[in-house]
């Protein structure tokens, strides 16, 4: 095992800032895949994910990058930078649609999965359907699923990355799981019940 494999992220960062190229390489190799996958899952674009990852590590290279180990783990800090870059990207291309626009992904959600795929989750077809359902979640729910379920961050680190309380992470994850279950069961109609406005009529 190489020496840097035994070092913590914080130790590698310290050496990185003293100019140690091997420390930078070790930290990059340790963290690149998760950040890249997060950006890819959130943007759906390999090009955007690559640029986000690049910029995340460019921030890290710069002196005074703003990381405070007292506030959370370095990995959570890196996810947080990636998230800010993605928000900037979304705002630029979508005319400032905020990330907490709850209905942003609802149309995509309706199109994500056909029929009851719940029983197929042990097979590749079911996993593919689940991936589509995750990618079609509204962004605020997708990001907690990606961070907590796919990248296996604990709730505290996810909260640090998202800049919100742990309770918010849990409640969003709760809602996200419910949406995924609804979609995988194929129970959702062409419109969500909440989107229907009852009107009074006479026959």
């Amino acid at each position, binding site marked *: 095992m190489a020496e840097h494999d035994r070092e913590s992220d914080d130790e590698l960062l310290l050496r990185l800032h003293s100019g140690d190229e091997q420390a930078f390489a070790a930290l990059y190799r340790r963290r690149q895949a998760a*950040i*890249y996958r997060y950006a890819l899952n959130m943007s759906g674009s390999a090009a955007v994910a690559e640029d986000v990852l690049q910029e995340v590590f460019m921030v890290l290279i710069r002196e005074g990058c703003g990381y405070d180990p007292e506030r959370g783990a370095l990995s959570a800090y890196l996810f947080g930078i990636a998230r800010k870059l993605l928000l900037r990207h979304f705002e630029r291309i979508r005319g400032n649609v905020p990330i907490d626009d709850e209905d942003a992904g609802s149309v995509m959600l309706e199109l994500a999965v056909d029929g009851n795929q719940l029983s197929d989750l042990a097979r590749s077809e079911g*996993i593919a359907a*689940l991936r589509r359902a995750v990618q079609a979640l509204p962004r605020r729910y997708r990001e907690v*699923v990606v961070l907590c379920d796919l990248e296996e961050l604990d709730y505290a680190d996810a909260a640090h990355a998202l800049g919100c309380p742990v309770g918010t992470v*849990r409640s969003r994850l709760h809602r996200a799981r419910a949406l995924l279950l609804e979609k995988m069961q194929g129970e959702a109609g062409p419109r969500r019940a909440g989107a229907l406005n009852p009107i009074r009529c006479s026959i």
Partner: protein
Amino acid sequence: MTCQEFWDSMPELAPDGAPELGEHLRGCPACVAVLARQRQVAAGLRGLAAESRRVQAPARLEGRLMAAFRGEGGMTEIPLRARWWSPVAAWVAAAALITAAALLSLRSREAQPLPATAPQMAAVDWTFGLAIEDAGGGTEEGEFIALPNAEQLPPPAQVNMVRVELPRSAMISLGYDVKAEEAGEMVEADIVLGSDGLARAVRFLN
């Protein structure tokens, strides 16, 4: 505990066998069934996570970042990949120019309507649901690359392809390495335009 109170406690996020869940579940088969389905989803997410572990960033990025790290003092001179947040607008403008250029027949050929669902098409990028017929023009033609803004556009009912000339510098925003002395050269490219006139993808020739 009512069913509502039970679900408000977010039991699907609790570890298996958590004692506080047992009491309600013993008397509520409906919640038992829903919780079992929730755990199927959770297991599926673990499978998806395991499958996703194979996804890594492109290897070229490490080289670029290492170069940036070595030249930290002169960061602006390091040939990093161009940022997407500024070229998006540039590509939109470029698409408009390209459309105008095509209409003016400046070294363009007649637009070729291509049904997006035609058989024997090579996929461009699954995220856009867009498919492009391979023109079959030989080995000098590369693959189509989705433009940075294309994923935000609705899939077009029909696409057109126009051949244009672009400054080589336009390739930078798509990740190509372009030498400074060659940035002003013109290169031929095929642009895929949706029926709305917006560019979706590009491929550079030779």
